[in-house]
């Protein structure tokens, strides 16, 4: 075995988190290899050309959570990353009406009062609470989750930081925070608003990507998870990565290669090599083996340990905990190439809010029923979707005059039920077609001519996402965002600081704290932890080492 087969660190999986870890390690002077099973990098942050002339962000599709500290540290704009904010959004009702969301406060207030004067007053109180909670949580995203059972100074230090932040809230806010974190988005919205369409419009962010319904406690937090990001400092704002989400991965990849790293695509990890409780290398599916004392797995925790690690190397309790870690597929996606912009008869011509996120959910009960379908292994018969036409803002996504539409669908089960049997393999040409038809039917509520404008549609079920990207059950967060799986419980109690029972092996993907959403925080935090453990100084400047 030659010297070229030996690396200081190997990152398994070139998703955005894996690449982020790789960048930080390479910048700290390590000789790093990234291995990726697909022929392209990016994991679920990719731009793919699946219909000639069109670019699909065929998994994740919008950007807000990507931590700006990381963007600055790694100088991603230098490598081509440009995030273009989009504004507004709307929900269309079946009776031909709509509710439009806009970021201009006065305009929004006027729009809300068109539906309910009461809700216009309530909105300020609502957004104050949400922003306050966002401010509270943001400092934690780039910090390790303290282990409450530990008496190590570092864990106590982190706990004290938490207490200090909580203390800063004051008594009343502390109570509100406890309450907010444990509430359902449905109850929270019912408390503030009376109009069903407005409630349904906001509620979507509480369920996207989860196996929870709008009335499941804990979904108010999920809303936060979608609101705590920013675009250029505007908290809660979302944007498109120019050229599709792949632009993020490509920028990370370029940064990594410039720092001297190597990326090998086209062959995934067959197994992690372990000897005497220490990781020693990685064996790829194509038979290649690489030696390394340090492995960072960007795969989710189930895939890492249940499929690619020999189980005799793992304590039984740990294995049991990994098995019960919940990663549930709940979302599907349609990527559509459009011949022309569809008509939205309800909206004023060229309304700016059509460039934002569009929905057709009309009430919280409708969303809850969509969840009930999913629990039984069916896709929602009346699905919720988050639909955008990014080519209106980013013309690189489609040929001139044509458009690209992305439709994120909640809920679609991973283990589809057919004839009493629930299995991922039940997703075939026929069921996928029926699923797409169901989504198109609902899309027609907003744009009746959508079918005639469609040139090509890529149908993505949780099963497809798992097969292609490697995310277990196609779950976009690499694990449910419920309290039993957040902070010091993520992914496994006692192993919440990116470490694993195998020396030298780390979990750096969204299965780790603080979770998914193209944030890159798990990848960066893990890199910090790895460098600290091997006694290397940190190349990060964006946040204190």
């Amino acid at each position, binding site marked *: 075995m030659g010297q070229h087969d030996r690396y200081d660190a190997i990152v398994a999986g070139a998703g955005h988190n894996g690449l982020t870890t790789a960048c930080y390690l390479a910048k700290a002077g390590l000789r790093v290899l990234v291995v990726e099973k697909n022929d392209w990098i990016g994991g679920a942050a990719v731009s793919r050309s699946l219909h000639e002339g069109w670019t699909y962000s065929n998994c994740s599709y919008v950007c807000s959570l990507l931590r700006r500290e990381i963007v600055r540290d790694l100088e991603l704009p230098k490598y081509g990353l440009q995030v273009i904010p989009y504004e507004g959004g709307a929900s269309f009702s079946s009776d031909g009406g709509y509710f439009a969301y806009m970021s201009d406060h006065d305009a929004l207030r006027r729009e809300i009062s068109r539906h309910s004067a009461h809700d216009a007053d309530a909105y300020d109180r609502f957004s104050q609470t949400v922003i306050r909670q966002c401010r509270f949580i943001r400092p934690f995203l780039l910090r390790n989750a303290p282990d*409450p*059972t530990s008496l190590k100074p570092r864990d106590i230090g982190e706990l004290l930081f938490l*207490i200090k932040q*909580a*203390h800063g809230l*004051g*008594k*009343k806010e*502390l*109570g*509100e925070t*406890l*309450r*907010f974190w*444990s*509430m359902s988005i449905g*109850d929270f919205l*019912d*408390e503030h608003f009376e109009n069903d369409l407005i409630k349904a419009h906001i509620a979507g962010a509480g369920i996207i990507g989860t196996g*929870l319904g709008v*009335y*499941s*406690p*804990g979904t108010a937090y999920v809303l936060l998870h979608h609101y705590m990001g920013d675009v250029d400092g505007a908290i809660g704002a979302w944007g498109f990565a120019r050229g599709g989400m792949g632009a993020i991965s490509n920028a990370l990849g370029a940064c990594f290669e410039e720092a001297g790293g190597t990326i090998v695509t086209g062959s995934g990890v067959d197994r992690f090599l372990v000897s005497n409780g220490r990781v020693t290398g990685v064996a790829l599916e194509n038979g290649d083996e690489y030696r390394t004392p340090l492995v960072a797995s960007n795969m989710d925790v189930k895939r890492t340990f249940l499929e690619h690690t020999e189980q005799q190397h793992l304590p039984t*309790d740990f294995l049991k905990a990994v098995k*019960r870690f*919940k990663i549930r597929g709940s979302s599907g996606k349609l990527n559509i190439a459009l011949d022309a912009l569809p008509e939205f008869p309800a909206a004023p011509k060229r309304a700016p809010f059509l460039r934002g996120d569009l929905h057709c959910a009309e009430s919280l*009960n409708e969303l*809850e*029923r969509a969840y*009930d379908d999913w*629990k039984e292994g069916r896709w929602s018969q009346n699905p919720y979707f988050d639909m955008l036409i990014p080519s209106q803002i980013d013309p690189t996504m489609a040929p001139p005059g044509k458009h690209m539409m992305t439709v994120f669908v909640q809920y679609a089960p991973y283990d589809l039920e057919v004839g009493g049997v629930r299995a991922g393999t039940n997703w075939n040409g026929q069921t996928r077609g029926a699923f797409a038809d169901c989504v198109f039917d609902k899309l027609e509520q907003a744009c009746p001519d959508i079918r005639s404008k469609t040139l090509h549609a890529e149908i993505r079920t949780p099963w497809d996402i798992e097969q292609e990207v490697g995310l277990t059950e196609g779950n976009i967060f690499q694990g449910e965002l*419920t*309290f*039993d799986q957040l902070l*010091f*419980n993520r992914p496994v*109690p*006692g192993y919440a600081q990116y470490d694993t029972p195998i020396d030298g092996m780390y979990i750096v993907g969204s299965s780790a704290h603080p979770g998914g959403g193209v944030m890159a925080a798990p990848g960066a935090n893990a890199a910090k932890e790895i460098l600290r453990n091997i006694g290397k100084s940190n190349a990060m400047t964006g946040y204190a080492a």
Partner: protein
Amino acid sequence: MTTPTYDAIVIGAGHNGLAAATTLARKGKSVCVIEKNETAGGMARNTTLAGGIQVPEIAHLLYNLHPKVTKELGLGSARAPLELRKLASVSLSEDGNHAIIRDGKAEMVDGRPHPEAAPFAELMRRLTLFAGLLGQLSTKSPPSFEGGLTSLNALTELGGLAKLGLDLKRIGKKDMREFLRVLLSNAYDLILDDLEDSPLAGALAADAVRGAYAGPRSPGTVFTLMYRMGQGGGAQLPMGGMGAVSAAFETAARAAGAEILTGYGVARVLVENDHAAGVVLEDGTRISARAVLSNTGPMPAMMLAGAKHYDVEAVRRMRNQRCKGSAAKVNLVLNGTPEFTGHNTDLAASRLLIAPSATYVERAFNPAKYGEMPENPVIEAIIPSLTDPTLVKDGRHVISAVVTSVPYGLEGGWNDAARERLAAITIATLEKYAPGIGALVIEKQVLSPACIEARTGAPGGHWHHAEMGIDQILTVRPANGMAHYRFGPEGYYLCGAGAHPGGDVTGLAGRNSAMQLLKDGVL
């Protein structure tokens, strides 16, 4: 100014009201309990059906009566006699292969050990351990964090919490981690991580959500399961029916010197100079007192004093309180002993559960979310007369059934037809496990959540006066800033299940509120 007639008036003679009154009276205070119904007891009363059979009207079993309350009030002593019998739980299966839970252990109906006895025992061990830890918080006022986290007051509270922290440490790292993981989790996943989805799993899932407006997949249901297990989780049947429990509370109150006035509704609470000064009865009589405790739900308590005595924030919080009842009560008088498939009479005397799987329990709750009645409800039924022969009359037995996932806000409203439909659904469900039971029914009593509200005043007919969600317990029960029994005007206290620690016949809310009142120096 005249001297007040009483030191304290308690509105409502539910068990918590009586516990509060007894606690105060035993400290030498003059106390009067005022109850709008003709008898004391609230939800823990007996009713008479079919010309003289005693039936537990609403609540029918005891789980959580706190030993501290029993001791302090002297319940079960010669002063206030109360006899309890432990009941095993039988989770029914249509094929007769029922699962039996006795003293926290699982077995099969024919005496064989349950195939999942070991994982079940381990699950129960953990839950009982955690429930015991949480139980420590129930006998004190919840921490208030008054003045932030670093003030002297908060430090004293944290001192109390430190005991909990210490005990947490003492259970070992592994269990402590498990505790922190499951605390806010959902019962469905917790149960099915260790058990197959069978009647055994169903029984736990049903216990987790009974009386709650939630399905077992809702996060927070592990907490409600642990709450129920605070005293070990075993069900106890009071001899003489639930009425005997209230009778014991009532006897204890009278023995301590409290007066109980039944048949008088309170129209409003008198507030003078922002201080509770007594009550005005519905007939216009004024009774003055130096303090008033309300055993009503939080919102009705606020309305009795008048919303103008509360700040806007508090009123808004009360209005937004989650208190949708989801449990109905169906009492059926049977002209004979029912036969359950694969069952002997001995087992029919147990707590019978219709919850064949955790998935069944979740499905049962689905329609309730949309104001619809479940076609296949979860039922907890007992036939008290099989254990307590004093309740049998002319060979007639009573089956007392708690039917859950029945919405308070039924689409179309609760009327005779709806109640009739609920009775039919209940009988049809029972019929699957006890063929022929329907033919034995000679009288029916159906109490929807709306009826329960009308009879007891509990908001939404909710068993616990307010949902026991994580967002409505401890420091935020009944609402943020109102958690210490002090309820608006000085000298006005909330002493019912809407206050910490919450529902079930525990007696703690009443006892704690009286202690807080004494500590505050109001009297």
